[in-house]
């Protein structure tokens, strides 16, 4: 459980000094031993106060599993020129009465002061720690230079393709992957991890593994409508299957129900036998059957947590770029075009 130490408005020019003072105060005032920890710099970029509050809340929770220096930026290019900053510490109790605390810096910039954001963020990054930028809201297609400067130190760009409007967003991500050293990381990719694990499990038995060669059609049933963003999980799933099998079976995306995300997958083989994977949200599992019936294979995969903080933690726990995702991303763009 995150315990934010009260926000402290600080002078932009002395954020680092104020953070040091905050730690000294924590050390003296706290009843419990305090340990400062950081594995990542996480910069959340937002366009509104609602998004800012959302990012602050999510990253405070995520910092319990992945200690980080959090910098939450709220940019309002249309507002009147202003820049302000706050600092706080997110503390989590671990065993032995000890607290682990991660720092959070909030920066709000408006009007032409927005151009101060990138250099300020750059100065606030902890040295020798990787940098992840979580981009919330519309991707920066119209604010290219601003985004480019902000992304310059980023090792990872986190975003949620369920908010994508169309193939242009995928194009932008592919360009970043191909032309920069920033590795894209999609929350939707983390959402379909349980489906990838369940599918892999289905093909673990040697006899089934041979059948990977004979996949004929893949039907993905997903909820939440038929918009580009709503079918993004299904698109990524099919792209992944193609990337890993080296085959291009026919595919269909079928809208079903209102719950977001993939609901079921049907895989048909050349001999017309069918394997079915179906999410059982009540039991918290994905169940996979071959030939349409319960078999001795017992493919039951535990569903993974889908809260945004859990997804971010899963993406940050991977220290290097996800090569399988990058392969799948390129195929997803092709399939979507």
């Amino acid at each position, binding site marked *: 459980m995150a315990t934010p130490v009260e926000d402290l408005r600080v002078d932009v020019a002395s954020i680092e000094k104020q953070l040091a003072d905050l730690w000294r105060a924590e050390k003296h005032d706290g009843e419990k031993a305090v340990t400062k*920890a950081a*594995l990542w710099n996480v910069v959340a970029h937002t366009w509104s106060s609602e998004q800012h509050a959302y990012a602050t809340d999510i990253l405070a929770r995520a910092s319990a599993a992945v200690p980080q220096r959090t910098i939450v930026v709220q940019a309002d290019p249309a507002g009147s020129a202003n820049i302000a900053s706050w600092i706080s510490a997110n503390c989590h109790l671990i065993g032995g009465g000890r607290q682990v605390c991660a720092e959070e810096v909030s920066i709000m910039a408006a009007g032409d002061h927005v151009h101060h954001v990138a250099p300020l963020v750059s100065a606030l990054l902890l040295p020798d720690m990787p940098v992840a930028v979580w981009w919330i809201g519309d991707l920066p297609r119209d604010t290219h230079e601003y985004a480019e400067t902000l992304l310059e130190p980023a090792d990872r760009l986190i975003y949620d393709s369920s908010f994508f409007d169309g193939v242009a967003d995928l194009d932008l991500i592919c360009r970043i992957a191909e032309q920069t050293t920033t590795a894209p990381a999609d929350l939707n990719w983390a959402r379909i991890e349980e489906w990838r694990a369940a599918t*892999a499990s289905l093909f*673990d038995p040697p006899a089934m593994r041979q059948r990977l060669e004979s996949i004929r059609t893949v039907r993905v049933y997903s909820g939440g409508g038929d918009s580009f963003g709503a079918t993004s999980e299904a698109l990524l799933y099919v792209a992944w299957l193609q990337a890993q099998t080296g085959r291009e079976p026919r595919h269909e995306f079928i809208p079903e129900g209102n719950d977001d995300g993939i609901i079921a997958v049907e895989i048909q083989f050349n001999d017309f036998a069918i394997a079915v994977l179906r999410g059982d949200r009540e039991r918290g599992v994905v169940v996979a059957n071959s030939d349409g019936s319960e078999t001795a294979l*017992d493919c039951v995969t535990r569903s993974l947590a889908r809260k945004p903080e859990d997804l971010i933690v899963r993406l940050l726990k991977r220290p290097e770029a996800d090569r399988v995702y990058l392969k799948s991303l390129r195929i997803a763009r092709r399939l979507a075009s």
Partner: protein
Amino acid sequence: MQSNPLREGLEQERVPDASCLVIFGASGDLTQRKLIPGLYSLAHEGLLPPGQTIVGFARAEISDEQFRANMRKACDEHARTRPVDDAVWETFAKGLFYVQGEFADGAAYVRLRERLEEFDRSRGTEGRRIYYLAVPPDFFDDIARHLGAEKMVRSPDEGGPYTRVIIEKPFGHDHESARALNQIAVSVFRERQVFRIDHYLGKETVQNLLVLRFANGLFEPFWNRQYIDHIQLTVAESIGVEKRGNYFDNAGIARDIIQNHLLQLVSLVAMEPPVAFEADAVRDEKVKVLRALRPISEAVRGQYVAGSVLGEDAPGYRQEEKVRPDSRTETYAAVKVFLDNWRWADVPFYIRAGKRLPKRVTDISIHFRPAPTPLFSRLGLKMNANVLAIRIQPDEGISLKFDSKLPGPNVRTAPVTMEFRYATSFGAEPPEAYERLLLETMLGDATLFARRDEIETAWAWLDPLLRQWEKDGDPEPYPAGTWGPEAADALIEKDGRKWRRP
């Protein structure tokens, strides 16, 4: 068969093929506290394949259903991931079966073989076998002989599905009995089919020793006699013998801890870089360390008397249940160890293990030589040696101690530490050692298991000390709740050093 390409990049990247894992001694404590809860946790993490089959074998007359109910209770009490997830359990339990039998009864093995063959067809285990001998060594011979007689062991030379056997410590009582046990094992199995569990090797921090040393450019240049003054290894337990009085009184701490856990740690700390992170490459280097052990010339043994541990009265060892009232078994041992090789010549390794010490802790500390010039000593300052401490359990982590100037106009120094803690940095409890070791066995990777020559070399080094102690009088007494007998302090202090308080 190629690996499953869909596994690439998943958290569960390495999932073994389904096998029949037979646990001999399925009604025992180890099965209920560690093995089944560990296997359930693997299933919970998605690391067990569909069709994985676990067969308990023991004397008790119970059905498959009763066995499943007993194992569910064991998981409810001991699984790392609790509460038990009903959906995961349901599938896991479908793979749990029980065969009743005496270890010496040939007919029981026929029943077992028939059931395993049935699972090969119905659950896709295709002849893959793992036999876990969770039984005292007295039964090894019976079990191995019957498995051989019923043709339940396939040689790796034949190709086809594998057969593996997991053996629990103690691997013998001395050099001779260890050799005899190994002889039994290799009369039926090839050495590469034998997986000897030392659960210390399954601990994350023990594995991290290799990463710390060989994945970082910083440490290895200083990891030798030129820069290291001495090394200390401590395995301290706050508990007494609990319900193991019978076993422990015949073993003692040197057999129980030093011969296996502590010597494994010594070999990992002292080994040369292996040519590859592969089972035999790593174990070749470990056994070279054991072969370089100089015969023991300085050692202390102790036995606890009544005292106080963690705020509670603790009885003396001789008052413990199932311990002989005139027992001379050591509950504490400290040994000064030297390795006669190029890297470690004349660097002492002080190793100690004990029961009823002030707290439970396993810790390795590397004490570096002091700075070469007494620059600050001339100012009357006390300089401290740098210490790299590796905490194996609990609160796993690494700390580095060095001197720093105290703020102010005067030159005054104080020791400070830089600390890394697993729980703080990674926010998660590491998996249980048994989970990792069971998975490695299924995957066929023996890197984290002890090889025959390691076991026998370790016994050959320890045997003379054990024989000497048998001739000596009573061990040195130490009150429960202290860090051992005074003679143990004298062992290190006469060299101008002190035990580090872990």
